[in-house]
């Protein structure tokens, strides 16, 4: 049993708070993910595109929300996962990832929970909004 198996529609799952995202984290993520777009690494490039500074990869926030998902249920139960990148995450930001159960349905012979996912900054800005479907035990 996991925390998700006890959930019902409306249940909010434990939030995942991320410490400040450093430039070092962005460099490590660039190497590990292969996403070396310099707009996340080189402030001169970022400024030439009209940004104040580098900002975090959207896929880094998506990976943080995926950590929340695999914390609440084993990954083999994850059926789908999608996000919309709503706002940039500045370097040094401290996002919080949250998930709420919005539906539980029987699909293909298994019970599946649909989760509404949000990553947000301390000022309330939603940086990433999405959903995931996870099979229940």
């Amino acid at each position: 049993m996991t925390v998700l198996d006890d959930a019902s529609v409306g249940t909010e799952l434990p939030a995942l708070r991320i410490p400040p995202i450093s430039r070092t984290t962005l460099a490590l993520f660039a190497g590990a993910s292969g996403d070396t777009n310099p707009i996340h690494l080189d402030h001169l490039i970022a400024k030439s595109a009209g940004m104040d500074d580098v900002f975090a990869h959207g896929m880094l926030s998506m990976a943080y929300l995926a950590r929340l998902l695999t914390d609440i249920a084993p990954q083999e139960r994850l059926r789908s996962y999608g996000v919309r990148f709503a706002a940039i995450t500045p370097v040094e930001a401290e996002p919080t990832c949250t998930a709420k159960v919005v539906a539980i349905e029987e699909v293909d012979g298994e019970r599946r929970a649909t989760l509404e996912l949000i990553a947000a900054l301390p000022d309330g800005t939603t940086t990433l909004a999405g959903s995931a479907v996870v099979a229940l035990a």
Partner: protein
Amino acid sequence: MGVDPAAIGTVLEPVSMDIERGRLVAFARATGQLDPVYSDLDAAKNAGHRDLPVPPTFLFAIEQELPNAFQWGLDLGIDLRYVLHGGQDFSYHRMAYAGERLTATSTIAEVYTKRGGALEFVVKKTAVTDESGSLVADLTLTLVVRHPEVAA
């Protein structure tokens, strides 16, 4: 300059990646993943996995293996500085593990504009398959290209 809608349907050259344990450990470290299942082979095996699992969003990395991962975008006339990742979707068919060789095959699926051309959307769909050709996951990438020269 916008992307020519004639690009829709273009199938890109497949990209293969050998999924290495060390790379998955580096990904776990970069994403703050402390669950040992993702970095410790014994922990993974104790959890019933045959090797280190490929985490949910790592499949996105396969196409980044190319010497110039964004060449397909450059070929469409997109300026990398004005690109925002608008959305990303994964549909999973099975777990993937270290030791596998996975292949990503992408198709330009949609091209459309909003706000009078100030924002352009390019949707790319990618099938990730294993060595037997079986489907592991489907990915959908939505790129947003800003056109600051177009008054919104």
